[in-house]
């Protein structure tokens, strides 16, 4: 299964990079979102994949059951998801303001504006 997820990471990242290479700032937003997904998934898989055994301590026990999933990548990814949202929101607004100011989302014509 790790192999399949690795391929998914590759597809998500590749699609993200392709979108970053577009001239459109809107596609750049999509690309960022896909790359966030790819990286989250990558970190998640490094912890090892466990089915149906979350790191929860059952009501009567003192420790989680043996073979539970690693809580550290989960905690890392959880914050990364929320940060990713912050990043996405900020990028969106930035792009929106850029388009509002320059009247285009074409990065090539922005270069002309620079000079």
């Amino acid at each position, binding site marked *: 299964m790790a192999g399949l997820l690795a391929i998914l990471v*590759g597809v998500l990242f590749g699609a993200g990079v392709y979108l970053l290479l577009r001239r*459109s700032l809107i596609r750049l937003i999509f690309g960022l979102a896909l790359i966030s997904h790819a990286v989250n998934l990558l970190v*998640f898989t490094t912890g090892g994949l466990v089915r149906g055994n979350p790191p929860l*301590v*059952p009501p009567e026990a003192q420790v989680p059951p043996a073979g539970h999933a690693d809580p550290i990548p*989960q905690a890392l990814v959880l914050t990364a998801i929320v940060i990713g*949202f912050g990043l*996405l929101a900020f990028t969106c607004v930035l792009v929106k303001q850029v388009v509002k100011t320059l009247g285009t989302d074409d990065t090539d014509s922005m270069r002309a504006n620079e000079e």
Partner: protein
Amino acid sequence: MLWTILLLFGLAAAAPLVAKFAKGASGWLLAAGPAAILFAYLAQLPILPGESRSEVWEWVPGLGVELRFVLDGLSATFTLLITGIGALVLVYAGGYMAGKAKLGQLLSYLLLFLGSMLGLVLSDNTIALFVFWELTSISSYLLIGLDHERESVRSAALKALLVTGGGGLLLLGGFVLLGIAAGDLGLKGADAFSISALADLDLSAHGLYPAIMVLVAIGAFTKSAQAPFHFWLPQAMAAPTPVSALLHSATMVKAGIFLLARLHPALGGTDLWTALLVPVGAVTMLGAAITALGQRDKKRILAYSTVSVLGILVTLLGAGTVVAIEAAVVLLVAHAFYKAALFMVAGNVDHGAGTRDVTLLSGLRKAMPFTFAAGAVAALSMAGAPPMFGFVGKELFYGKLVTAEARSTLLILVAVATNVALVAAALLVALRPFVGSSAGVAKNAHEVSAPMLVGPLILAAAGLFVGLFPDVFDATLGSAMATAIAGQRVDMHLALWHGLNPTALGVMGLSAATLVLGAMVYHRTRRLLAPLAEALSRLRAIGPETWYEKGLAGLVTGSDRVTRGIQTGYLRHYVLAVVVAAVVLAAPPLLRSLPGAAPLFPEAPRPHEALLVAVAAASAVAAMVLRSRTAAIAALGATGAVIAMLFLLFSAPDLSITQIMVETLSVILLVLVLSRLPRLVTRSSRSRRIADLAVATLAGGTMALLAIAATTVSLDPEAARFFAAASYTEAQGRNVVNVVLVDFRALDTMGEIFVVAAAGFGIHALLRLAPETGGAA
């Protein structure tokens, strides 16, 4: 000894405030600092030959860097010169810049420089010495560039900084090699960087010795303005006169001489040492002395004569015999006295008569009697006339040459020619402006204020006193200094009169001939040497200064071209550079690690999982290619939702819920934003898209390889085990992930929530605080 350096740095920080409140008196007030230090070190006298007092402070023990200070004959002499002349220069600067806005700045930089210089000469650790060495370069940059509003001043300051700083870098290389060599020869830790410990080693036998020698020599040559690095010094005359008096008499430019003297016991006494120093010194002293005579500006004459004297000192240290070192010691001290005095005299003349051009100046003796007196006495010393200390120095210099073997005949000629030129230069700067008709600029000239007279008068008197009683100097300091340089005990017996023996008579003959020839040259200065100076300045066009300027210009245009090449202004080029570099760097090692990785599919994937992965991949590709904004957003949302399901399947319920919630909010966000943005259009050509797709495929492949490699790395299970075990028992929470977030690793979460807050506030600022008017600014 540390306190004296820190005191100077502290005063440097306080100087602008002092100047603001004390105004005219600030020079006097601040001079009290170096003066106090001067007396503190005077109280340590006499220092006996071979005696050294040290003081050690830890600095960077792990790297063998310590603040080890040594007070011996060499450092004590320099310390007294620096603080003494420093105090006088501060007083002088207070008068010179009286009422000017930059007085505080000047005094502050002067003190900063004095502290750096003091640290340099007291350091016994090469690394610490290097740090102070660079501090002197930086503070002299500030000093030379004080009038930075003028372009020529900026370029002069930059020239001094680049030349001395560049030499400093080579010096650092030399010091590092020196440390390695010392380590090979048995010194450990901080000792490998301790200069006094180096003297006992046989470094010349080490394979690195030639490299060390060349690097250290270039470092010293750049600082002490030896050919072909001399050109920065005359340019540095753009600085205010107090700065020149300090930098170009006893301090900055003597730092290179100090370094050679300090390292002579460790590195000297070899053929390479002599072969490097003597020719460079000889060329410098003669070339600079002749060039000096071709100048009209008093300060430039003095600058070139300084370069010339530095050349003499390098030659003497290069010879390395006891007599040569004695001569170097005396000449160094004598030069410090008379050159500082003459610079101040030049500044006084400039102030009093309004020009420093020797062809315009004449007859100032009545208008500026004190300045004339100080200048005349100092010039006598410079010319090497009895009974001045400069005379004692020149006698020793000649004595060294006369007693040396026949091969130095050429050197004698060079030395005599140099001294003849220096005599003429001395007369030119200290005699010509004051004698003759007082009809020209002298009519409106006036004597300068007391602070500007104290310095030159005291310095001239000091040169006279030491000349009359040279035995006082050699008993308290001189012998110890020569001993420290020679690395063996030296007992100096300086005298004005050496009795009647063949050597002494030969030396006296040379001295007399020098004075007579010098006077003759002076009388014919313009006619005799103007064409020569002309030729020299034409030589400049192919000389090192031109290389420097061409090199600097080339650097600017070169970096301009490189920047234009790299910074295309196309966003996708930057992305491409990052992605391609990452792929090229990361893919090969990842591919190599692949055969050792665990089997990709130890078990057949479960159908529902495989289906989810396929859906996620398909929606990602859809988000990539779809041309409708709404459809693309929907595909993006689907990707996220499927990933949330994957999280749930693999035992991460918290992640799953978070992902779903964020995905929902992201869709709302994208809809809100994109509804106000233009439609998606295809702008790139087909071939461009295919090329990008290839790059994207490579990047995705590399990322997949990384993911595969990552599964074979086992994370340290200790932390996870602890979190799981302590979650309920210690942190009273059954959801380990949440406990990690809010308790065990709460600091991370705290940082994270602040980042989210920053994004929120940033967006608020972007939307609400942006200027309402549209259009490109």
